[in-house]
Each structure stands twice: as structure tokens, then as C-alpha cells.
């Protein structure tokens, strides 16, 4: 079962490489994405036993990330059928192969308990996404690709030295040398605190870079701004969650050591800093895709703060993996449509999107309302859980900074989004052949419905999954 999850997308990548027709490739992509989701759901209901040696183990944390990645990937794949039809000027072979390789590596990150293997898979997702950011083949996109590739590669390399420190700590402690999560947690008490402390610093910086926590977020606005909408959706709704899962693994380990307080405080500081940075740069942002990138910086900040707070907030962080991932899908896919229609992503040109594109404009507006944490959408539940947990724990300052940032971000984002969707279409606005159709509007609409349903009702199996996952992240007595 584990093998199928990894190998199937790779077979898909090989098949799309063989196909000579641009029209057919996105359909094959969707077919494999559908099969991937089917296997995922099967594995979620009938959890396969841990593989020999404990290398592969699908626990509740992995399940949540795998589920959200697989759902988002399928919707993006279906969207690509309609979207790539408008990008016929260039071959879509590289983008389809890159997406499937990334899906395979992403699945590997979620199912493995070997930290070294997880690192390899995580770096593979970074590299496989690089050609996709360069899809537009212009000076701006090459700049974005360069920054993304270099900063993320260096970041993930720093995480590797962190893992090496952990492995050396096991050797020094004369326990069985290993990078298996379960072994490390079992022996955590015996590990030398000097090495473990150094390891946590490097791991936090490394995975924090990949996740885009401030001040390590500088690649994010460029990469998200220049990548096509569907790649942006997968970066901000998929890859971010994988990096967060890596941090969750480190957190699991930190819980078993004396370093947990240090690790939690570092997460809170970086998280709040991310939110403040996002609030500052969100204001008067004239490029709506860059605005979404800062929104992503904000939301990884929210997840980091929640993890740092611990207790009930962890549940919020885990639910936010799903809520943020799906809502980002709505926003990036609909913004891709608006970008196609106006042939511009500057708010100077894009006005009156609701008139020109009632569906895409409406979805973008609804996505904005959802992502800023307004009821009745899913991000409201997670953000409310986190804030109330901060105040219940008596950490007033954290709660206050959190709330103030959210408010400023809401205002800043509204100042960009509302003029975009409301009002009249400028007379000199460029017109393109893009029209809203079921192929490009359906996928984000489905995602929005999910975000809406999750906001008012969490199905019992999902609730059980979230509780199981939160139990893995509780402080052991």
C-alpha cells in the first residue's frame, strides 16, 4: 500500500513524459491524481500496519497532511485541464511531470518515520517545483525561480546538518544509532542536551525556511507572485504543510526532551514575527498574487504560534493545515483566472472583477472572507481555537499581538481585494480570450464548499483523526 502511494505518481510522470499531445496530458494527470486520492482514502480508513523496521508508518499527523495534499492536488489537476488550455502557446510536459514527481515525494514525506528519508523527500519536492515556477519563461519568473531554489535548498541543507547532530547525539549517548522517529523519542531522555539543542536550532531554521516563516520568507512573495495560479496553490496549500509536518516531527521529539520550552518559545517568536511582517507588507500591496504570498506568511505564522502555545491550540494548528490549504487553493486558482482574463496581476488594471468574471471574482471574494478568519468558514474555527487558547492560558501579550495582526491584515487585504472585485471594469482594460467555464471555476468552487462545510460541521471521522493527531503532540508527563 505504501509503495503504491509513491510509485503510482511516478508511473504517471513517466506516462505523461511519453504522451506527445498537450491536450491529453492534463487529463492523464487528473486520472493519476484521482487514483492517488482513492488510495489515500483507502489507507485512511484501513490503516496499513507499520512496515518492517518502522521506516513507513502512517500516523494521524501524516494522515491529515496526506489527505489535504491529495484533495488539493486532485482539484489542481482537474483545474489544469481547463487552465492549460489557455496556455497552449507552450508545451505542458514539464509542468505535468513536475507535479506528479512532487506528488510522489510529498506522499513519501507524509508516510515515513525515518527523518533522513523525510529530508530527502522534502528536498525532492523543492527541486521538482522549481521548473514549474519558471513556467512563464520571462525575466521576472527566472528571478523568482533562482531565489526560491537557492534559499530553499540552503534552508533544507541546514535542516540536514540538524538531523546529523541528532544522529550524532544518539552515538554519543551510546544508544542504538538511528534517525527513526520512534527510536529517537524512546531514547530522547538519554541524548546529550548540547547536541540536541544545536540540532533543534538548525532544524527550526531549515524547515522554517522551507515553510516560509519570517525572517526566512524572502523567497515567498517572488515565487508565489510569478508562478502560475495552480502552482501557487500547491506551494501555499501543499508544500507549506509538508514543511509544517517536518516541524511537527521535530516537535514530537522535542516533547520528549528538556528542550521543549525553548522550542515552543522560538516557534512563538517566529510565528508572531511572521504575522507582523505579513501585516506590514500586506498594506497597499498592488500585486494581488504577492498579497496572497504574504497571506501565506501570515498563516504559517499562525500555525507556528499555535504549536508554540501547545494545549488546545495544537488542535487549532492541525485543523488549520486543512483549512488553510483548501482556502489557499480557492484563492490561488480564482486569482489565476482573474490574471488570465485581465492579463495583469496589478490592482491598477484589475477592477470590477465581479462584473467581468462573476464566478471567479465571487470565489476570490469568498476566499478572502474565509482566509481572514470570518465565520462561517473553516479558518474561523481554527483561528478562534488558537486565540481562545492563548487567552485561557493567560498569555495575554501573545493573544493581543495575534489579534491586532489579524485585524490589520484584514483591513490591508480588504483594501486590495475590494477595489479589485467591486466597481466598474476600466474602459482601457485588456481583453483576452479567457471566459469562466466549468473547468476553471468548478475546482475552486468545490474547494470553497469544503471550506464552508468544515466551518459549520466537522465529520466524526475527521474529528477523531484530529483528536488522535493532537494526542501525539501532548506534553508527556
Amino acid at each position: 500500500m505504501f509503495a503504491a502511494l509513491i510509485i503510482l505518481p511516478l508511473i504517471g510522470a513517466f506516462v505523461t513524459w511519453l504522451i506527445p499531445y498537450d491536450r491529453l496530458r492534463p487529463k492523464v494527470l487528473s486520472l493519476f491524481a484521482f487514483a492517488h486520492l482513492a488510495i489515500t482514502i483507502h489507507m485512511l480508513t484501513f490503516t496499513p500496519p507499520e512496515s518492517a523496521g518502522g521506516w513507513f508508518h502512517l500516523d494521524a499527523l501524516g494522515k491529515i497532511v496526506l489527505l489535504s495534499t491529495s484533495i488539493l492536488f486532485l482539484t489542481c489537476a482537474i483545474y489544469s485541464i481547463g487552465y492549460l488550455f489557455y496556455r497552449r502557446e507552450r508545451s505542458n510536459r514539464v509542468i505535468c511531470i513536475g507535479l506528479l514527481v512532487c506528488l510522489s515525494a510529498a506522499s513519501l514525506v507524509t508516510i515515513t518515520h525515518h527523518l533522513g528519508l523525510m529530508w530527502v523527500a522534502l528536498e525532492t519536492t523543492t527541486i521538482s517545483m522549481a521548473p514549474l515556477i519558471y513556467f512563464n519563461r520571462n525575466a521576472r519568473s527566472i528571478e523568482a525561480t533562482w531565489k526560491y531554489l537557492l534559499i530553499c535548498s540552503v534552508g533544507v541543507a541546514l535542516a540536514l546538518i540538524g538531523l546529523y547532530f541528532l544522529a550524532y547525539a544518539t552515538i554519543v549517548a551510546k544508544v542504538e544509532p538511528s534517525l527513526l522517529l520512534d527510536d529517537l523519542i524512546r531514547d530522547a531522555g538519554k541524548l546529550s542536551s548540547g547536541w540536541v539543542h544545536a540540532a533543534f536550532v538548525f532544524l527550526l531554521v531549515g524547515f522554517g525556511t522551507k515553510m516560509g516563516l519570517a525572517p526566512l520568507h524572502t523567497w515567498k512573495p517572488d515565487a508565489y507572485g510569478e508562478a502560475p495560479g495552480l502552482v501557487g496553490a500547491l506551494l501555499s496549500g501543499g508544500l507549506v504543510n509538508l514543511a509544517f509536518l517536518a516541524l511537527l516531527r521535530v516537535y514530537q521529539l522535542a516533547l520528549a526532551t528538556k528542550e521543549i520550552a525553548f522550542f515552543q518559545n522560538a516557534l512563538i517568536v517566529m510565528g508572531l514575527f511572521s504575522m507582523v511582517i505579513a501585516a506590514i507588507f500586506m498594506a497597499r500591496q498592488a500585486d494581488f498574487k504577492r498579497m496572497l504570498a504574504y497571506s501565506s506568511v501570515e498563516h504559517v505564522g499562525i500555525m507556528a504560534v499555535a504549536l508554540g502555545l501547545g494545549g488546545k491550540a495544537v488542535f487549532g494548528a492541525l485543523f488549520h493545515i486543512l483549512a488553510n490549504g483548501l482556502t489557499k487553493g480557492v484563492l490561488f486558482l480564482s486569482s489565476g483566472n482573474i490574471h488570465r482574463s485581465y492579463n495583469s496581476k496589478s490592482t491598477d488594471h484589475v477592477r470590477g472583477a465581479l462584473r467581468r468574471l462573476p464566478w471567479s471574482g465571487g470565489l476570490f471574494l469568498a476566499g478572502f472572507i474565509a482566509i481572514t478568519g470570518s465565520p462561517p468558514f473553516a479558518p474561523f474555527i481554527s483561528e478562534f481555537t488558537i486565540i481562545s487558547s492563548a487567552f485561557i492560558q493567560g498569555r495575554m501579550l501573545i493573544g493581543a499581538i495575534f489579534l491586532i495582526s489579524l485585524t490589520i491584515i484584514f483591513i490591508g487585504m480588504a483594501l486590495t481585494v475590494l477595489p479589485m472585485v467591486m466597481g466598474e471594469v476600466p474602459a482601457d482594460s485588456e481583453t483576452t480570450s479567457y471566459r469562466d467555464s466549468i473547468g476553471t471555476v468548478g475546482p475552486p468552487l468545490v474547494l470553497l464548499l469544503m471550506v464552508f462545510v468544515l466551518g459549520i460541521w466537522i465529520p466524526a471521522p475527521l474529528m477523531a483523526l484530529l483528536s488522535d493527531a493532537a494526542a501525539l503532540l501532548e506534553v508527556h508527563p
Partner: protein
Amino acid sequence: MITLADQLLVLVLLINFISLGTSRLIFSIRSVAVQGVILGILPGLIHPFSWHLVAITIVIIAVKGFVIPQLLGRAVRSAEIKREVEPFLGFVPTLLLGAVFTALSFGFAGRLPMLPEHQNYMFVPASIATLMTGFLILTTRRKAISQVIGYLVLENGIFIFGLLLAEAMPIMVEAGALLDLLVGIFVMGIVINQISREFSSLDTSLLTSLKEE
């Protein structure tokens, strides 16, 4: 064997300073290639003989000593540039900083508990010093090629630390990490070609159209 390994590590440290101090890109690439070959020899000196070890040695020397330098060399030739001119921070200050970082890494390594049999080795300080050197090159140089060289030196530093962990790191993970490095450099090489085509230069400080106003 231990003394030989330590002498080779001193050589690695010297190469760090060469790559910090030179402005000629081809020379820089070659010195990092030599560093790669040394890293390939090191596992053979500290671990007992096995065929698995021979395979690792060959693969590392091939990848770090030949394939990657070849990729970078081709990128330099096709971009027709020879020198790193006007780095963000001059060569002398970076050399001095490199010396400071090297000293600091010896201090850092001294404070961490080591296995008795590793006590007299220079692996940990050499690893951290090389890592810091790579980071320094990455942040102070303007040319895309120099930044890739910095990334390589940084990876070499991580690799030196990995030598202490032969038992803990399964071969699959080692191989995966090396493959990721190779593919990463390959993709970076392609991007470099595109940069030189688009901007007629490899100067990454020209990559500023995405700055916030």
C-alpha cells in the same frame, strides 16, 4: 590513518580560504572539485574496508569531483564570464570573516560532548567551518555561479559531519541526499543559463525587479 585524515581536513580548510579569496570562477570551481575528491577519500581512512565503502568512495569522487564541476564549468563557459567582480563584500573582509568563523567553529566544537574515539579528530570543527564558509560565499557574492559554489561548499561541510555517522545513516538516505544535490545543481545550472540569456550577465544583483517598493 588518523593523522592523514586530519591533514586532509586541514587541506579542506585551506581550500575554503582559496574559494573565499579568489575572483577567478574556473579556479574556484576546480578548488571545490579538489575538496570533493578529498571528501571522497576520507571515508576510506576512518572506516574499515568493505565493498560498500569502495562504492561510496567512487560515487562521491565521481559526483563531487567530476560531474558537478563539469556542469558548473559548462555554465561558466556558455555565459562567457571569468571573474567575480565587485562582490557585495570585498575579498579581504570575507577572508578575515572566514578566519573568524573558523576559529569560532573550533570553539563551538570544543564545547560539545564527543565520543572518545572522535575526540582528537578535526571533523566537527572542519565541518562547521566549511559550512560557514559556504554560507559566507553565498551571501557575499554577486554572480549566480559563485552562489552555487557557496552552496556546494556548504554541502561539503555537512558531508564532513556525515562521515562520523556511518552507522546511523542508511545507504539509501546517503544516496538520496547525494542525488538531490546532483539534481539540484543540474537545475541550478539550467537556471543560470536562462539568467545569462535573459539578462546577458550572471549578476544576481540585476535580479531586482521583484523588490518591494
